[in-house]
């Protein structure tokens, strides 16, 4: 795992000292709110409906047991005993007091954590595949490149005051688990010359009020040119990006206005100019230095099957149910990837208590080479568990109420905080998620429905990724009353698509019934082995419109 060097330590420490001074001056009346607000936003501190909210970065979603335990400590000591894991692989605390924030940041800094690049119009915390480094079939570990991008972008003077925030995601696998095409820049590692990694670079994706899928703007960019190419993209964006209108300032609007081809041409032209190119060329030693941080742990040589594990599967039905949904194939024989669902039936998506975070830290230390991942679908992952340990890991997770067997099923939803917490919300999201989860609680029914991604946002900002949900739910406000608009057919994977609006919005009382009708329509129309999205893509929106609105 990445460890801070001197430079990282220094900038994080300096930032804590600086912000501590700013908070003091604010509380002493030396800074006005207008002066202070941009400063707190640079440190991940928002003001929400009931309190301040602090967003802490978990770069590319990877953390150690010690770091997870620190997140638990912050929840316990300064907040209300829990935290909320987000789609950007970060964690949010909903109740910090302004006067405590400097202490929180100082505590986090002791384990190399911070809130830098979690808000403001900068290049945000780079996100990645939660199976990075362990998935079978991966071309290269995306965290190496995410870390290189992090070092390049942190406090980069030119990229600290962009027209708007800028989000980058990287994956090393052809199965996209990082929603890269829905980011300002999405990077897929491909095979380059001489077996070296190269990059297909997509730009102009995003959600919010104008959702767009990113376009390919650079093909097979060699590894050493990555930063130079990124710099060319940023220059074209910084040159033309609209600063006059907040809603038009994202790179997606520019790519759309110029056309993807013209945008790509300008980037190539900028790239050819050289610019800072030579300085940004990655020297071999540097790539190898970063790569070493992500070297595989000391795996044992094991047979791929384990008799005790097979026996437990045969004898313990609950364990077998969990194994069926929550495990993924590991690249090393005898190991598995364990997914921890943060979506208990009827619970709050992405929330974990301090005790649960401690439990995950303990289990990771004992059974997963001290590593935990946060997924963009608001779950956690233990990347390296021996098959022979799975039964014990499951028992411990179960004891911490962390063994819900529903990864990828309908109750495994992405849900934004919505009107229960968020100052920008139009409607509640969490309660709708809870009702849907309860309506489909029967596990056999969930398995029969199969893979189905429901995503819920409380307003058009789309933090809950509703545009790319197989079923997306968007909260809208009609004269102070909550309504819910439904989209169908969205997807955030390698075949990314923005969903289609199915028709007029539903009331809070109607929405769960409407979701049930949609699921029934799918079940009635599906062919052998088809998941919801495939059926939708085959039959289109009309059969759903009919069943939803015909009766009305």
């Amino acid at each position, binding site marked *: 795992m990445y460890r801070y060097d001197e430079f990282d330590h220094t900038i994080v420490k300096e930032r804590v000292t600086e912000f501590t001074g700013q908070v003091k001056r604010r509380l002493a009346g030396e800074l006005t709110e207008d002066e202070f607000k941009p400063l707190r936003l640079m440190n991940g501190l928002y*003001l929400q*409906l009931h309190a301040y909210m602090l967003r802490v970065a978990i770069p590319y979603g990877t953390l150690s047991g010690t770091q997870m335990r620190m997140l638990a400590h912050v929840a316990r000591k300064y907040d209300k005993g829990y935290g909320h894991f987000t789609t950007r692989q970060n964690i949010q605390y909903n109740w910090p*007091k302004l006067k405590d924030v400097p202490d929180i940041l100082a505590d986090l800094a002791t384990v190399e954590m911070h809130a830098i690049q979690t808000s403001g119009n900068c290049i945000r915390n780079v996100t990645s595949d939660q199976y990075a480094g362990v998935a079978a079939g991966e071309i290269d570990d995306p965290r190496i490149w995410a870390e290189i991008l992090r070092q390049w972008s942190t406090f980069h003077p030119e990229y600290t005051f962009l027209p708007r925030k800028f989000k980058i995601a990287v994956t090393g696998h052809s199965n996209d688990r990082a929603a890269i095409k829905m980011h300002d820049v999405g990077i897929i590692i491909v095979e380059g010359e001489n077996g070296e990694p190269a990059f297909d670079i997509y730009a102009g994706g995003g959600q919010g009020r104008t959702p767009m899928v990113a376009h390919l703007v650079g093909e097979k960019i060699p590894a050493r040119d990555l930063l130079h190419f990124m710099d060319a993209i940023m220059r074209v964006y910084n040159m033309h990006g609209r600063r006059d209108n907040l809603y038009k300032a994202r790179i997606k609007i520019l790519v759309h206005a110029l056309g993807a081809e013209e945008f790509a041409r300008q980037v190539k032209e900028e790239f050819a100019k050289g610019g800072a190119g030579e300085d940004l060329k990655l020297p071999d030693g540097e790539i190898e230095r970063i790569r070493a941080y992500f070297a595989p742990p000391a795996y044992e040589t094991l047979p791929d099957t384990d008799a005790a594990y097979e026996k437990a599967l045969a004898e313990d039905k609950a364990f077998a149910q969990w194994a069926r949904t929550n495990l993924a194939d590991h690249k090393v024989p005898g190991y598995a990837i364990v997914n921890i669902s943060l979506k208990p039936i009827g619970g709050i998506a992405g929330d974990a208590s301090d005790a649960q975070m401690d439990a995950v830290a303990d289990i990771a230390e004992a059974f997963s080479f001290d590593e935990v991942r946060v997924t963009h679908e608001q779950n956690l992952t233990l990347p390296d568990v021996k098959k022979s340990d799975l039964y014990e890991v499951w028992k411990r997770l179960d004891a911490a109420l962390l063994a819900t067997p529903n990864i990828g099923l309908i109750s495994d939803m992405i849900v934004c905080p919505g*009107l229960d917490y968020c100052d920008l*919300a139009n409607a509640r999201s969490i309660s709708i998620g*809870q009702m849907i989860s309860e309506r489909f609680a029967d596990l056999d029914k969930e398995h029969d429905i199969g893979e189905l991604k429901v995503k819920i946002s409380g307003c058009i900002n789309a933090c809950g990724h509703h545009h790319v949900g197989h079923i997306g739910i968007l909260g809208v406000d009609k004269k102070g009353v909550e309504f819910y608009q439904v989209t169908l057919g969205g997807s955030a994977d390698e075949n990314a698509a923005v969903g289609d609006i199915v028709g007029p919005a539903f009331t809070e009382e109607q929405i769960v019934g409407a979701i049930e009708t949609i699921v029934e329509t799918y079940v009635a129309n599906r062919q052998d082995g088809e998941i919801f999205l495939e059926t939708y893509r085959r039959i289109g929106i009309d059969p759903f419109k009919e069943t939803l609105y015909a009766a009305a």
Partner: protein
Amino acid sequence: MAQHINKKARFHSLTANRLLDGEPVYLTGDNGWSEVLTDAVIADGKDEGAKLMDIATQAVKDQHVVNPYLFDVDVDGDKPKPISVREQIRATGPTVRLDLGKQAS
């Protein structure tokens, strides 16, 4: 952001967040701030609303609160009752965690 005020609405109260801890507070009749919505003073019409906003603007300058705004209320007896779901939730706490926020204490 959700609209806090409907043009046709007549009665308003004023809310803000306390600087120190972000707690939602309401402007009261004696120019103080209360954590309880029903303590809020009610403005009848635009002009009275603007007067409340002036008081709040001073409180922002005095480092007491941030983010002040007026919101629509109904008058229930002599107490304000928020019209939007948003202000109802803000005045009580998350509907999904009844152990948290104002409703908990």
